[in-house]
């Protein structure tokens, strides 16, 4: 009698793999739109042609540019005009602090944003100046000189005050780029910042109410409350997250989420932070996995040897 087991094994494995391929990779490729990454090149935005002057940029940012009317730059001692809840009440969302904007955001994006926010953010479907729908961030129309030079100066200034790319942590990247709209409960993060641990429940509840008020303004502004991102690393895959951050419209046409204009490095760090929230045990998984695989392999070898010794007498 010839041994049919290898053939049976091939048949079982082939049908298993076929079924797996059909219901997993193939079905998902049909169900989900595939969006190619553009490597955060922002090819639709014009490159910065001028070399920026930091000192000039500082003067413009603090003065004629009008940035500090709404934005704080805590690093440079410029405080916020309003607390986040009041600011969200006024603008829909709290305007970001600009201390690290120079490293978080792409330079081309910043330049375009200063001149035409709705365009850079890709929310022109929501904010059409012709229809009187103004974006809450007022565009910069120039301070009297060459506007491109002025914008380049401001960008250079922002870059000069920001930490270096190496110093930007995943947490900072998330808080700057996403954190004013997206909660991350598993990291204790709310849209108005990390929730401190309060001694009295009354204070804790007061904080929660502030968050709720902020969320109410944000919901009105965005159409719906942006989701908590605690588990997004598991509910969406990395490729989706990266291409979504790069250009939300490419995935979800008409979405209220703006293109945030982060650099490739920042996006990478944002995703890492999401993994720090939703997949905390990934390193442990890899190392435990290795040990278990070795253990099972040794078990299988012993089982095989045992079988061989038992079956020797059976033939």
């Amino acid at each position: 009698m010839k041994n049919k087991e290898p053939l049976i094994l091939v048949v079982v494995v082939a049908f298993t793999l076929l079924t797996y391929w059909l219901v997993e990779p193939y079905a998902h490729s049909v169900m989900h739109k595939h969006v190619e990454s553009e490597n955060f090149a922002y090819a639709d935005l014009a490159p910065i042609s001028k070399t920026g002057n930091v000192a000039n940029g500082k003067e413009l940012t603090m003065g004629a540019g009008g940035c500090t009317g709404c934005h704080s730059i805590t690093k440079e001692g410029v405080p916020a005009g309003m607390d986040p809840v009041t600011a969200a009440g006024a603008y829909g969302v709290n305007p970001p602090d600009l201390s690290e904007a120079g490293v978080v955001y792409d330079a081309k994006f910043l330049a375009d944003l200063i001149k035409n926010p709705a365009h850079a953010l890709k929310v022109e479907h929501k904010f059409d100046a012709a229809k009187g729908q103004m974006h809450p961030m007022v565009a910069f129309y120039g301070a009297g000189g060459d506007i491109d030079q002025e914008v380049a100066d401001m960008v250079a200034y922002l870059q000069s005050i920001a930490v270096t790319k190496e110093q930007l942590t995943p947490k900072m990247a998330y808080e700057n780029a996403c954190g004013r709209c997206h909660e991350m409960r598993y990291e204790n993060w709310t849209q108005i910042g990390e929730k401190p641990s309060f001694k009295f429940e009354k204070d804790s509840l007061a904080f929660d109410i502030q968050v709720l008020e902020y969320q109410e303004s944000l919901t009105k502004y965005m159409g719906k409350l942006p989701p908590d991102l605690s588990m997004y690393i598991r509910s969406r895959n990395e490729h989706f997250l990266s291409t979504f951050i790069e250009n939300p419209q490419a995935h979800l046409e008409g979405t209220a989420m703006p293109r945030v204009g982060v650099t490739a490095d920042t996006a990478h760090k944002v995703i890492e932070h999401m993994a720090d929230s939703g997949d905390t045990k990934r390193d442990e998984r890899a190392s435990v996995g290795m040990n278990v695989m070795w253990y099972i392999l040794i078990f299988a070898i012993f089982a095989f040897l045992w079988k061989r010794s038992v079956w020797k007498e059976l033939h």
Partner: protein
Amino acid sequence: MAHFTKATSVKDWLNQRLAVEKVEKVMASEYWIPKNINFLWAMGMVLAITFALLLVSGIFLLMYYQPHVDLAFDSVNYTIMREVDFGWLWRNIHGVAASVVFLVIYIHMFTGIYYGSYKKGREMIWISGMLLFVTFSAEAFSGYMLPWGQMSYWAGMVITNIFSLGGLHMDGLVEWIRGDYVPAQAFLSRFFMLHVLLLPLAIMGLIGLHFAALRIPHVNNQDGEEIDFDAESKKYLAGDKAGSKVMRFANDFMSKDMMVVGIFLIFFFYLVFYNYSFALDPVNFDPADMLKTPAHIYPEWYFLWSYEILRPFSVNIGLIAFGFAQVIFVLLPWLDRSPNAVPASRRGAFSVWFWLLLIDMIVLTAMGKLPPEGIFSTIGLVAALAFIVLWIALPFITMNEKKV
């Protein structure tokens, strides 16, 4: 009253009270297994081991899981996945085992069909097996509700809703199952009870029945040979181990079972650590939201074929087809009219039937996941019709089969 003597050893003490030696013989060393069986006969043991993995990992998860609509999601994704030491490991084991157990069940079932192991005294094995399949399905479905994610909620909604569809219109029944108009706390609590108590109890009882049903007819073999177990076992016990057509269950066949289990576990733990997302659907990592229907609602892969039998038809016909698919496998021993309990390869038309059924179920599985549009819905419809036709044709095909 039985006569007891002073025990000479612990074993003797137990023997007088529990007849352990006798039991050991009946269940292991003199439980005779044909030699001409291949590794497919180890799938039963693989299933038993996988069930054990489910049970143990489930007990660990149960220590932290909270069956409350406001807490369930976080108790799984925060407490178990982040806070508890190795909580993630138990969850991955539980999730992957729940999926893989169905792969092995399907292999085990199709092995039974291929070798005709459901007839000639083996009907009870088949029926208890099908009951296991049904309870396992209910166990998997109820477990899927527990993390209270988007897929839990919406799959729970869609599946319980089946009874209210079309001519059935049993809205009262749907409400009764849910304990509410929509899946909510009452729904979660009762599925929790089913998942951790009633269904596991039923499964354990059924596994006992399945094993008991096997003991008397013995397992089939890959040549469909009728073996005289008494004569062959005598030969074995007389020392002609090589000449006998049978072997002991333990240690003879068990050593092979363990070898197959070892290979299976390599595959299983590879999935647990490196490729688990097929078993833990990404959509279920979004918390349940009754106001937001997911773009695609689909059951886990092992339910897809029967889901696809429901879907391509108009509501009433779909329900009938679905009901048909749920019960038809149980009737296999009676729909197969041929007396031959030999491998399908020697049964002519039945062999064609077998491979068509297998391929058809794979096609149904794939179409059940794909969106029901264009060519996919046509293929789905044809495959669903083919499934029904195949089963209706079975008695006619097998009636005229020549005796081999």
